[in-house]
């Protein structure tokens, strides 16, 4: 017993000494820079935004503590914010409509018999990832332009009146959602394809022996087995949608008549387009958006956990 106690004591001492000698601390030093960077460039701005959301702050001179006034204004006196949230809901539906297309593409290519063809199609879908999204938005904008765009020329050939895709309050949201048709996102495709490749091939063989046709196999084996990855992609998509505004900024600037305004763009406008800038107010908006995104992501993840 005494020997054992001594051994335990010795180990403790040894462990402690190891810590002191740096054997245990040393690995942490390697990851310390990452945490310092994370703190400086991710956590600090985030905390700063929460802090400044209680200020009337223009980024240069004005910096007055005003308590919850920014939040009160946001919830009681900012119709644009609510409009932007409603618009966001429509774009969320658009996201859900567009989402399966990447999975379908992954399934189709995964089921090709020829490895060469698989590789070729894979490359064709993945290569466009390197094209900056700004370029894609600008191309689509040119396609939509009244009078000179591709659709306008088609309408002219058919001798029919061309809709004002980006200038009509009823058409602008569907037009923005339609951009990028057939909606095969490189990342979504890649992750779905990788998930399909990860399925144990013995399951496919068993299904084949049981006489299961491809379509049935897709719905009974493939999709259920890659659901965790699809949910992760969906969460990423929702987060991207909540935070993103580049498409609307480049294509419509939120118009016409706020019909394509999203919270991110509204936040950008009050922070940078207003004179003087309303950084404090924009920070309050960012905090509210963070809470909404956090809740949506948590709900989706909980659903995943439940399954």
């Amino acid at each position, binding site marked *: 017993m005494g020997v054992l106690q001594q051994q335990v004591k010795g180990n403790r001492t040894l462990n402690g000494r190891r810590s002191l000698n740096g054997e245990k601390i040393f690995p942490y030093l390697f990851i310390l820079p990452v945490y310092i960077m994370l703190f400086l460039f991710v956590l600090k701005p985030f905390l700063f935004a929460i802090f400044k959301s209680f200020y009337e702050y223009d*980024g240069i001179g004005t910096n007055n503590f005003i308590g919850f006034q920014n939040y009160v204004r946001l919830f009681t006196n900012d119709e644009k914010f609510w409009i932007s949230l409603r618009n966001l809901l429509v774009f969320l539906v658009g996201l859900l409509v567009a989402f399966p297309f990447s999975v379908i593409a992954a399934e189709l290519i995964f089921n090709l018999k020829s490895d060469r063809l698989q590789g070729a199609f894979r490359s064709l879908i993945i290569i466009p990832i390197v094209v900056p999204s700004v370029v894609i938005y600008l191309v689509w904008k040119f396609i939509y*332009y*009244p009078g*000179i765009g591709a659709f306008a020329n088609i309408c002219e050939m058919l001798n029919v009146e061309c809709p004002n*895709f980006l*200038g009509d309050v009823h058409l602008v949201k569907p037009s923005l959602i339609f951009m990028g048709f057939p909606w095969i996102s490189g990342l979504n495709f890649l992750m779905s394809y990788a998930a399909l490749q990860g399925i144990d091939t013995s399951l496919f063989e068993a299904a084949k022996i049981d006489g299961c046709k491809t379509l049935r196999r897709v719905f009974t084996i493939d999709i259920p087995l890659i659901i965790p990855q699809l949910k992760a992609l969906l969460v990423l998509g929702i987060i991207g949608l909540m935070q993103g505004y580049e498409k609307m900024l480049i294509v419509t*600037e939120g*118009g016409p008549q706020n019909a394509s305004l999203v919270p991110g763009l509204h936040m950008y406008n009050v922070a940078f387009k207003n004179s003087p800038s309303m950084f404090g107010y924009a920070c309050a908006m960012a905090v509210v958006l963070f809470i909404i995104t956090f809740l949506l992501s948590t709900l989706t993840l909980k659903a995943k956990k439940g399954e």
Partner: protein
Amino acid sequence: MKRRIISAVLVCTLLVVAMAGCSGKNDSGTGAASEKITLSISFWEAGTNRELETSLKEITDAYSAIHPNVSFKLMSQPVSGYSDWLKARFASNEAPDIIENQTGELSDQFRQGLVLNIADEFNAPNPYADNKVWKDMFMSGRLEAAHEYKYEPTYAVPFMGLGLAYFYNKDIYDQLGLKEPKTWEEFLNNCRVSQENGYNPIAMMGMKDDAVMWLSWWLTTGMYANKYLADKNINVNGDNVIESKEIARAIDLGYFDITKGEARADYEKFLDMIEQLGKYSQGATGLDEAGAKAQYLAGKAVHVMSGSWDLRGFTENKTFRSGAFSLPRFTKNDSETAGDNFAISTVQVFGITKSAEESDAKRAAAVDFMKFFTSPAQYQTFVNTAFAIPVIEGLDIDSSFDAFTAGTYPALNLFTKKGSTSKTTFSTATSMALSGGSYDRDKLIGELDKSLKEFVKDVEAKENVNRENDFGVADLPKQGEYTPTEAYSN
């Protein structure tokens, strides 16, 4: 003997020091010649061929040739995002020494102490222009425009005029037998003829907020400026500008109520006119600047309203001959209060920032360079290279600039005010009227009224004014009496 030698050496040393001091004074204010100074200049490049950068490079090189201790760092920025870039620079204390900016933003930056007061220098001679007093070298109204018609020359150096006009396709005009219109009626007639012949009369950049505001400036200034500027309840200090404080006061005290009376009637007439333009502007709300210009340059639209910055690009296009005419005027038939000599134009300005206060020599060099830049010899280079609308007197300029240099009065910013987070603004209302779609005017005007009320609150917060202190209008600079202008007549 030894003492004499020491005395002689001391006297010589003193003489050398004194002469060195004298030579410093003759250095045109650039500080001791030995002190190395680097001046950074930021600007946005609106032209497609980097004309501004090219001309600035030429002029800065010429300056460095006579002041070898001064070098320059030219910071060319894209138009889009320049303002945000500048704000970020100020926030991180890394603002360039000399900045190009719009008059309104520079005015804000001056008030915030970010831009230096150079009033004394404006009243001093310009050594590069036969010692003429610097402020007397600028064209009439340009220094006033640079200071938003509010202040004496204090902080802003105008360097380029910016005007709006209608560009038109000369080939189509010739084909349809049309003449450059002078009045609103003539312009609408040209649009009607163009449409009847299968052309889109106006490529209107209705997606661009600025362009929608240009429409408002053009119509309200020409039609109503005389009326509202002469109204002492609105234009309290009687100058040529209705300040935000004055409008806020007028709204708060009920002198300007968009929901009823004359203000409503005027605004409804304004909307009628926008609707008329909308009929001749196919797909306006779906066109941004690039789209409208592309439509015009493709020969599918006859007119496009744009600024002097497009003069070279449109003039040099190879597809057709492009011309420009001043924004059509309004006659007594259009409005009882129509007036002429109103300029839908402004100036681009340079300001010297507090970064230049790093040393006295640097500050002096920055001011001296501005004087050098605006000297006739250098400025002519700038105008020729950048195809810029001049702001300096006595230059040999191209006649194509005429369409952009009309008038010396500022635009009337009446139907443009908005609350910072308002859902419906004058801009969205104009967009609705342009679209050709149906809309509920009563509801629209009700929404605009809400926006104006929010605007009042914004002004109260921003300017620290309210009803109790009469919105601070007593402190407005330049108290005077407004003199109406005559209406245009054929």
